[in-house]
């Protein structure tokens, strides 16, 4: 064997070895696109990256047919595209205050164009190492521009705060998904400060009092 052929042989062997090594479960984190978000650190890749229907050959065949206009729908390739149902499989809640499907109503068109609240991953982009990756606390204003509560028990009524534009976010007093057992703050000025909310969005523990109402499942395979 010449030195050149030996070089090619070694190169090929090493490459194949590396590929097989990376496919092993213990080395999954090596080819992850980024650190997992808080709470997801212990999850295995297969929790979200679910193998799509058919063999790779069938998937290529279906997609070639789709691009040749011989089929109406594309087929997911290797893994299913991530959608809300993947998230809901663990995070399903009876009384979510802002369920994603709510934003599919036609009247939320402008908000959808701006922040896509109809998709879980618009706010919670995985592999970002943050709890909330894209939603800004001030985004509440995109929908809650008008509010009149007859039996308003806070020290300065909500509608007054809105009229005076004397508010930054709802999240100082309210938890977006309503998943904390907490007493609502009634004194304006004593709400959770903006920077604390931002820290929470990054990765700090939740600033809201009270326990979590619904704990997420630890695996989509959990019954």
């Amino acid at each position: 064997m010449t030195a050149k052929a030996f070089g090619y042989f070694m190169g090929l062997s090493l490459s194949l070895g590396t590929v097989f090594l990376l496919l092993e479960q213990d080395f999954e984190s090596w080819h992850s696109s980024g650190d997992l978000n808080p709470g997801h650190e212990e999850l295995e890749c297969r929790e979200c990256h679910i193998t799509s229907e058919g063999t790779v050959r069938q998937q290529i065949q279906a997609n070639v047919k789709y691009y040749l206009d011989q089929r109406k729908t594309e087929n997911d390739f290797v893994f299913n595209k991530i959608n809300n149902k993947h998230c809901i499989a663990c995070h399903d809640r009876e009384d979510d205050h802002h369920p994603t499907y709510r934003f599919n109503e036609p009247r939320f068109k402008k908000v959808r164009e701006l922040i896509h609240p109809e998709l879980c991953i618009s706010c919670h982009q995985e592999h970002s190492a943050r709890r909330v990756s894209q939603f800004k606390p001030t985004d509440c204003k995109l929908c809650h521009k008008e509010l009149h509560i007859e039996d308003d028990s806070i020290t300065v009524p909500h509608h007054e705060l809105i009229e005076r534009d004397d508010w930054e976010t709802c999240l100082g007093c309210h938890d977006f998904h309503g998943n904390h057992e907490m007493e609502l703050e009634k004194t304006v000025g004593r709400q959770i400060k903006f920077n604390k909310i931002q820290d929470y969005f990054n990765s700090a523990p939740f600033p809201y009092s009270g326990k979590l109402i619904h704990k997420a499942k630890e695996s989509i395979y959990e019954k």
Partner: protein
Amino acid sequence: MKNKIFIITALILMTLSVYLFKTAPALLADKSIKVGSQFPVSVLFKVVAAENAIARAIYTSKIVGKGKEVGLKFSEKWKNKTVDAGPLPALFLREVSQHLEKSPVPLGLFLGSDYPIASTNKFSGQQIEKFIQLKTYFNPAYFYSSDIKRYVAMFPDYAVAEGCVTCHNKHPDSPKKDWKLHDIMGATTWLYPDKTVSLEDIVKATSAIRSGILTAYKKYLDKCNSFQNPPEIGDKWPEQGYFLPSDKTFLAAYEKEASLQTMKILLSNTVHNEK
């Protein structure tokens, strides 16, 4: 050189074609292909809207309306453990809507109004335009929402019982206090992704809405069991006293009316198809 590249490319493409089509395994099913009779999606919308309207009317008049007369309570805070109450009709619909979202049928349902009690349910944009049209002509409004790729239908939601009128007129957060019986108080908005549907799609959607209605009613019965003074649940209705129909009794009463209505819609549209 050019010839060489051409021959290699042709060989690769030929190999790929043989790999993908000639010796390939069975084709993956294209789920968008519909088998059997085809209907415009408006037929599916008419069926589910009628099913929902019948359930809502029964719940509003026979459970909420008559129930209040015998001491049953209904509240916005019905899920609160310390409140012995059931869901108001709008919240009953929300439960149905939530169930639909969890079902595999891609059907969406929302309730809104131009004068809602909760300001977050107020129509705007295309929905308010279509709602005005709906109130003027008393016909459902259909349109396509391109960004979510959904066909949309809006159906009038009438004040079917005196309870609707009194509750909305008395509610402190209601922006309108002069509702009258049979007014259009709002609209249900329905979403579906396909322009045409098969009979199977309609059956699946009907089944999903019925399952949603039954689940919502069962949740109410579960809550009743935790009341300090729970009503007797069986085959009697509130008009007979402090009773509630069981889920089976409620479903039977609802299905009796709804099945007839659904069949009427399907048959009238099948005849139109044949013409």
